[in-house]
């Protein structure tokens, strides 16, 4: 009995090693501890051209460079253009009215603290190609595909 158990577990180990070799690598270099050159830095999209939102409540993307912009407890460079009181001189879109409300929907005098860190939701884009193809379908395209009733 004991011998059987031993040989069975040995066979299991060998089989495991064999299967592991045949399994496709999910990520990383081979061997895994080899250093590979970093991929080149991608250029930021800085054309100031507003991108369509993929769904109505998507945070709008940032179509300009934000390199070196201060965003910490002391200073918020984004608000120096996008805050309500600076939008006339900067001609930048004002941050959404939801950013002047607390979570209960009460209107506040200034930017809500929970909306202060802009880059938590709004991000600039680069020219990088996606590593995995994206199968996202716009809601409107989905609706158009439906056959009309009646």
């Amino acid at each position, binding site marked *: 009995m004991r011998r059987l158990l031993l040989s069975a577990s040995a066979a299991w180990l060998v089989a495991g090693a064999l299967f592991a070799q045949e399994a496709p690598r999910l990520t990383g270099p081979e061997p895994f501890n080899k250093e590979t050159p970093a991929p080149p830095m991608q250029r930021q999209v800085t054309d100031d051209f507003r991108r369509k939102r993929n769904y109505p409540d998507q945070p709008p993307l940032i179509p*300009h*460079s934000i390199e070196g912009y201060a965003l910490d407890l*002391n*200073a918020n*460079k984004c*608000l*120096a253009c996008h805050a309500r009181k600076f939008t006339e001189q900067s001609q930048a879109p004002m941050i959404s009215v939801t950013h002047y409300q607390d979570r209960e929907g009460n209107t506040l005098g200034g930017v809500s603290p929970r909306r202060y860190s802009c880059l938590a939701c709004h991000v600039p884009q680069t020219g990088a190609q996606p590593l995995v193809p994206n199968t996202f379908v716009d809601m409107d395209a989905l609706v158009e595909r439906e056959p009309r009733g009646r």
Partner: protein
Amino acid sequence: MAAIARAWSWFWLNPWVRTATRPPVTLSLAFLTLGGFVAGVLFWGGFNTVLEHTNTETFCTSCHEMRANVFEELKGTIHYTNRSGIRATCPDCHVPHQWTDKIARKMQASKEVWGHIFGSIDTRDKFLNLRHRLAEHEWARMKANDSLECRNCHSAQSMDVSKQNPRAAAAHEKDLFTGKKTCIDCHKGIAHKLPNMQGVPGWQ
């Protein structure tokens, strides 16, 4: 009156002064003029060498107040490393290049030597507490001299707005070219981190 007369005679009867005011007895006129010329060259050369030495990044970052705070923050900004390999070192932005202005700034900087000796910002906390005041000094200086240190390298004349993105071009055409604003009015905190900007115009 008598005191002044006494001081006057004490001065002129002083043996050093008597020697200095009497015509030379053994030294030739040629030796004195040429020697004076050489001594002048040595003095002026030495003065300028020391002045230039205090105008280098190595000198500025030789004290830890600068090295551990503002110099660390400069690293990683575009004025430290960039695609064209040009660096704006500390004095490029903080010391005027023209001689008179430079000497005036150097005399002001003696306050910084005082601060170093008595350790007014010798810890990070002390520095952060004073940062707003120190930044206000720099903004005031650059506002007063129309951002002279920026214009050491950048100028409105050599700025090609067609190479800028539309946003930057519009802002420069509206405010810089019309003289309404100077560089530092908008470009604060481009080389170092910012202090608390509450109450600073244009920030919130």
